[in-house]
């Protein structure tokens, strides 16, 4: 792990934390889905930088692809907005 890769990991993790926060906060579930896809992309880069090509392959397929698609399916079949609690 060189300094170069370590600083990249730091940068990427920060963005990932930001996206997680937004995904949890967002009331629009479609936006939350997209945020979680972005978060997955950052995680994929982290796994890549940590030298785990096998995981990157599996993780990209699962997190960017399957999760997002299945969440889109759910949202299209159910409802898009989370109701604000009174």
């Amino acid at each position: 792990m060189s300094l170069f890769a370590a600083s990249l990991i730091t940068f990427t993790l920060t963005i990932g934390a930001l996206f997680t926060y937004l995904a949890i906060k967002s009331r629009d579930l479609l936006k939350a889905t997209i945020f979680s896809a972005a978060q997955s992309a950052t995680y994929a880069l982290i796994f890549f930088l940590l030298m785990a090509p096998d995981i990157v392959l599996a993780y990209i397929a699962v997190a960017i692809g399957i999760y997002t698609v299945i969440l889109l399916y759910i949202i299209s079949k159910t409802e898009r907005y989370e109701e604000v609690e009174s």
Partner: protein
Amino acid sequence: MNFEIFLQLYGYLALMVIMVISLYGIVRGASLIKKLIALTIFGDTANALIIFLGFKFGEIYPPVLPTLKPTLEDIAWFVSTAVDPVPQCLVITAVVINMAITMFLAFLVIQIYRLYGTTMVKKIAKLKG
């Protein structure tokens, strides 16, 4: 070296923060779909945590031997540079398992919407009586 320690600790800290945020989402999410999203993030963060355990400073390389006719030097070089393959093996298993559970939960959420007409936790509790 100090800077590297700082970077590693920062990594752990960021992962912890993500984990806490997602746990909060699981517990307090108003919608089942939000809980599902938080759950996936939580599982992924646990996976990232174990990969963090397997890395090391110095020259590193993926745990794949790049030749089919290795000499002893090749193997020695491989052992000294490759990262830890055990966490990777565990994480692949865990990724698949998390994915399987998420798929099933997705099916359940759709079914619950068919029956109750909503995915809000509170409303479901109210409808259940």
